[in-house]
């Protein structure tokens, strides 16, 4: 998806750059530059066998798990809750048969992938997604085989969204920040700061909306430190990020123990947002309860994802952000103030991430707790990289991580044959695979992590 997206982004970029140049001076030399590089990209597709090999590995796992170690019995999937307007019937499948069918289908997909790569063509994303969904379905069937409780599909999905919200906000913040050229390891700190401030402000004012705004301010404040140190003092961005996380953890822990826990009624009992059912959409089976019976923060998240995607790839602002992140010298040459662009966008990224922090205290959990983000910021960072610095892909990656975390809860109820720790490990393992390039080559914005020293 992004493979087709990036060139298109560059294409929209070319006229703008040349136009600006034409107005400022003779720009004949620039015209051949971008097309050259994009041609170069198009012709130098390296034959990558990583995807088919990865597919083959998963197919092999499926063969072992679902066929050789297959479990007999029926598996039931519940598709709607009792309160739903439209009731879908439960689906019951035979576990072993499903496992065999899915394994065959996966083998077919793997062969297709091999053939495509041999023919010098890419393996499309939907094929990977299809393989993943098939594997997942077979896995759930295998787990639930013979169990007395059905797999609650709506619960699984609602939990996924709930766990993903902070990840997605964090990933959006990460995408903006990295696209503009500042590595944002401080997502964790921004989330935690947002959660803390949201809880305090909402508790004092009894207005969750004010808490939400305060969370954005807190996230931006953490970002401010990051930006100041990274851009003004040229401190390595990863170090600042890591240290900022420690700093925010220390600060919030200290203030929690010293102030919040002593005045919990006044300072740490935030009112939570109510769920808002969107009239017609919320009655769609499966999708409705998952997406349209949520709090305002979640709706804000949908808007944020769409807005970040649109703004990044279809507006002047986005073009500038990407230019600054990819080639600051060039951006500077056409009159973009690199460092101030970076500064304000890192602040914006922090504010967006702050919303995600507010979700902890105003949406899901309630009162603030020590280190309540529990590494969500790092997972969001992983989602950014897994999603290849693309807002939509990063969102999907965050959803995947949310699903994996939630799967562990769901399987705990059914009684999983796989230890829960291994389910919890899954997102991190996936990220390592992603980063190591088994899933696809991930290449960040060229100038990300490098301070720009204007000379």
């Amino acid at each position: 998806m992004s493979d087709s997206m990036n060139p298109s982004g560059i294409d929209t970029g070319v006229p703008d750059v040349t136009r600006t140049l034409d107005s400022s001076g003779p720009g004949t030399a620039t015209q051949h530059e971008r097309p050259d590089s994009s041609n170069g990209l198009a012709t130098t597709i390296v034959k990558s066998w990583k995807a088919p090999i990865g597919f083959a590995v998963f197919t092999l796992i499926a063969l072992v798990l679902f066929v050789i170690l297959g479990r007999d019995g029926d598996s039931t999937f519940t598709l709607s809750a009792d309160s739903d307007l439209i009731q879908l019937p439960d689906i019951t499948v035979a576990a072993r048969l499903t496992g065999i069918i899915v394994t065959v289908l996966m083998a077919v997909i793997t062969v297709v992938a091999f053939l495509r790569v041999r023919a010098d063509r890419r393996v499309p994303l939907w094929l990977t997604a299809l393989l993943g969904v098939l594997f997942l379905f077979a896995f759930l069937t295998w787990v639930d085989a013979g169990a007395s409780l059905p797999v609650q599909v709506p619960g699984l999905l609602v939990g996924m969204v709930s766990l993903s919200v902070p990840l997605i906000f964090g990933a959006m913040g990460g995408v903006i920040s990295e696209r503009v050229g500042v590595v944002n390891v401080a997502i964790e700190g921004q989330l935690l700061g947002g959660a803390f401030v949201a809880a305090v402000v909402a508790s004092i004012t009894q207005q969750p909306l004010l808490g939400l705004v305060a969370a954005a301010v807190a996230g931006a404040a953490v970002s401010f430190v990051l930006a100041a140190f990274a851009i003004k003092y040229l401190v390595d961005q990863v170090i600042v990020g890591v240290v900022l996380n420690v700093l925010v953890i220390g600060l919030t822990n200290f203030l929690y123990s010293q102030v919040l826990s002593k005045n919990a009624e006044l300072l740490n009992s935030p009112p939570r947002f109510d769920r808002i059912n969107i009239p017609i959409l919320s009655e769609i089976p499966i999708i409705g309860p998952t997406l349209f019976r949520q709090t305002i923060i979640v709706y804000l998240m949908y808007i944020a994802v769409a807005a970040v995607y649109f703004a990044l790839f279809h507006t002047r602002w986005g073009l500038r952000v990407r230019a600054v992140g990819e080639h600051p010298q060039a951006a500077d040459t056409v009159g973009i103030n690199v460092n101030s662009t970076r500064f304000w966008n890192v602040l914006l990224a922090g504010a967006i991430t702050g919303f995600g922090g507010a979700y902890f205290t105003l949406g899901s959990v309630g009162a603030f707790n020590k280190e309540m983000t529990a590494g969500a910021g790092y997972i969001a960072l992983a989602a950014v990289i897994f999603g290849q610095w693309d807002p939509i892909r990063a969102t999907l990656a965050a959803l995947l991580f949310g699903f994996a975390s939630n799967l562990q809860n769901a399987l705990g109820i059914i009684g999983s044959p796989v230890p829960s720790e291994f389910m919890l490990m899954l997102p991190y393992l996936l990220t390592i695979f992603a980063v190591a390039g088994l899933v696809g080559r991930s290449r960040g914005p060229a100038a990300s992590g490098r301070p720009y020293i204007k000379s």
Partner: protein
Amino acid sequence: MSDAASSAPGSSAPVPSAPVPSGPASSGPASSPVTPAGSPTMGSVAPPPKSNQILRDIMGGSVVISILAVLLALVVGGILIAVTDENVQAASVYFFSRPGDTFNAIWVSVSGAYGALFQGAVYNFGGNTFVKQIKPITDTLTFATPLIAAGLGVGLAFRAGMFNIGGQGQMLIAAACSGWVAYSFPLPYGIHLIVAVLAGIVGGAVWGGIVGVLKARTGAHEVIVTIMLNYIAVYLISYLLRTPGALQAPGSSNPKTPADLPTAIYPDLLGGDFNLHAGLLVSIAATVFVWWLLSRSSLGFKFRAVGVNPNAARVAGINVKRSYIYVMLLSGGLVGLAGVAQVLGTVTSGFSSGIDAGIGFDAITVALLGRSKPWGIFVAGILFGAFKAGGFAMQAGQGIPVDIVLVVQSLIVLFIAAPPLVRAVFRLPTPGTAKKPKQPKPPRDSSAQAKPAAAAEAVAAK
């Protein structure tokens, strides 16, 4: 000017500098040490890998900056303590009628806190026996033992341009390996200890080596991989700890290992009254080893060359990828020593999943504070060990949460990483502006000053 710079898509293309050859060429000597000859006008300081920047910044600072940074962090910590103190809050309500009360309350709370910190970390004035009086300093050394080892690991990786944030995972794996040997294999006295220590080193080295191999083979960013491996290690260890037959103590339902056999425990250095154990000697030996490695061995020279500029190192015939693997193996092994110190020295009665005690992350701050130099890390480790020992004493005595230590530590690192900030706060002169350049930094400054001139020339030439 504009077409020249914009037509260079990457810094790797020296050709497009054709339009304005005269300008930069004439000012070439000033900027030549830093920038390759091909970089023409605008800030195309063909960025050496980002790690070099920070490394140079870390190295380039002075001891004065470090001390002032610690001071500044303590002041900020003091403000936090004062603001959140209930007596101060109560007195500040009537600040304008009797300001003395507020200042008195501030003094009482801050001096009480830092006094307790000092007494918990260095010398206990209230102790009625000699043992009680000097126990704090030995506690500091005990806390410093794993910090030094892990700090050395992180610092060594820094020197080769790698960020090892995976201290937590490496410590956990090392602790598991070492602990497993320590409680399950009865071996003769002496040999058992050595085998257990080696097992821990190997465990840490393997966990760190994964990162090096992935970085060398696939270019995977070590920060991401180490963070992810931390989580994997946490879940792996907590699974093993609750699985009978793996690490869980037989007959127990707690996620905890059996106690170490006495043959595998680090012997006490000062007798049973103190917690100080022989792990400190191992940490000192490790410091000497890293010093020797970095400044006397050819491998260490390669590491440093790779850290300063991997491209130049490659040109000079150094196998950069292999260096990444080696340095991560060594780094993981050193961090593993910290896990060993925890298991065989501090917590010998069986450990649970919190055995790393946040040392993996503290090690980053230790390495930064120690400027990635072995003896600097040694001193920084002792300082942070003092913070830890004192922090717990402060929490017990004054009721101030130990988390304030985290704040102070991270502030120290932030301030140290940004010398200009500290200089601005204390109004110190910037080195290189008044006197002639002497550090590796000034050339960059002078080139930065020279370049606008070059650009101006270029414009004028057009």
